[in-house]
């Protein structure tokens, strides 16, 4: 088994094919999209491949240590150019091919006009705990 992170971006990813802002979709298109996402997660739970998913708020800030006894330094809000993660889903699958297949399905979630978004998702393998055995 191998764990993968599927990352969704608010910005920073290449533009989706069906790229219409969400507030311009018809209400039933929004509902269909939300339903698709819920069904997708439920299906992966059923198949035993689902680990976790979370959504992130679009705002945030940079933070770093500024020396002993000093409060951390912050910098924000993020500039318009920053790559911005919207959320993720973690899956545990047999192999890379299955991870690709699932990421493809998630990217096909319906958007404006009921057409697939063709949204670009970032697929990242986890570093595994146990070293691979070589023979």
């Amino acid at each position, binding site marked *: 088994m191998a764990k993968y992170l599927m990352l969704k971006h608010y910005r920073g990813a290449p533009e989706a094919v069906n790229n219409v*802002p*969400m*507030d*311009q*979709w*018809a*209400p039933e*298109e*929004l*509902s269909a999209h*939300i*339903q698709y996402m*819920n069904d997708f997660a439920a299906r992966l739970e059923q198949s035993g491949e689902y680990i976790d998913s979370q*959504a992130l*708020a*679009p*705002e945030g800030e940079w933070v770093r240590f500024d020396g002993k006894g000093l409060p951390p330094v912050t910098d924000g809000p993020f500039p318009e150019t920053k790559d911005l993660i919207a959320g993720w889903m973690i899956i545990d699958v047999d192999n890379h091919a299955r991870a690709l297949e699932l990421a493809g399905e998630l990217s096909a979630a319906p958007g404006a006009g009921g057409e697939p978004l063709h949204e670009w998702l970032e697929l990242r393998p986890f570093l595994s705990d146990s070293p691979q055995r070589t023979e």
Partner: protein
Amino acid sequence: MLRDLVPQVLSALIHRGADFAAAEDAVQEALLEAIRRWPHEPPNDAKGWLTAVAWNKFLDAARSDTARRRREDTVHAEPCAPPAPASDDTLQLYLLCAHPALSSSSAVALTLRAVGGLTTGQIAQAYLVPERTMAQRISRAKRKLVGARFTDPGGVATVLKVLYLIFNEGYSGDVDLVAEAIRLTRQVARHANHPEVLGLLALMLLTAARRPARATPDGSLIPLVDQDRTAWDSELIDEGTTVLQHALAREQLGEYQAQAAIAALHADAPTTQETDWTQIVEWYDELVSITHSPVARLNRALALGHAKSPEAGLAELRALPDSLPRHAAAAAYLQERRGDLAEAARLYAQAAIRASNLAERNYLMHQASRLNTCLD
């Protein structure tokens, strides 16, 4: 209910000389044993059974502790404890679990376990944290309470705050934290003679009454104004209203009673149009003067939008910082009522981006999309 006995059993152990932390562990173990054994061998005297088993667990733990540390313990010297006194320290236990020295997340966890009788696993699941993290949170909280005197309370207000947090912030798992918060608040109401306890109980009952109408089957939010009021639980409304009347009769107004009064006015109205918005605004005035909370002022602005005019509500909103949660959503709602659909759509989309949870974001995005579709 088995878990209703937990505070009494816990206080019985403490009266026999066990310290709070060890007694709490022993009661938790006795509960787990009860869950295992009672289905096959139901006890004649549930409280007596739990107390005896918990006391034995406590003695076992104290003995092995003593042996490990190779020193004498007073407990070791007197294994035959006197029977538990009849006095019931339930309220003191609640006060201890809500001790001001604890962070609110620790107080919530400790309350659910020590007086609620939930397992660490159930609490962890409800708040979506790993079980080990929750176990640490609870044992750290108990360590913090060492030396805190059993009879040194932080006041009933701290207990109410913790119970309200449990009511509002349950997430998932197989435990219904709304029902659990109501059960615990009822228990506190039996032991504390304070109108705000009744106020909180009334608020919980009246809010819980709307639960069947608050979401569609797929989990989408339905706001108060759009809810099917025939789906509201009329038994909970009746009980909540009665409890509130008892509280208000004491003439010591507090924030929970004021909020419950607002909930009762909504519960009493067959539709949004027939709601007594003028009285609701007056109750918000009371609430604002008690709490000075900007969130209460924001809700007052919305009520004023109904009682007087959307413009009046918007004027109130402009006096509040737009960084307030739900500020854009409230402005959007009032703009739509005013008839400025384009501005309302823009504000709904902005509110969706700022929403702090997914269900709210989806709802607000839907409003933006609905209005944009009308405008096209």
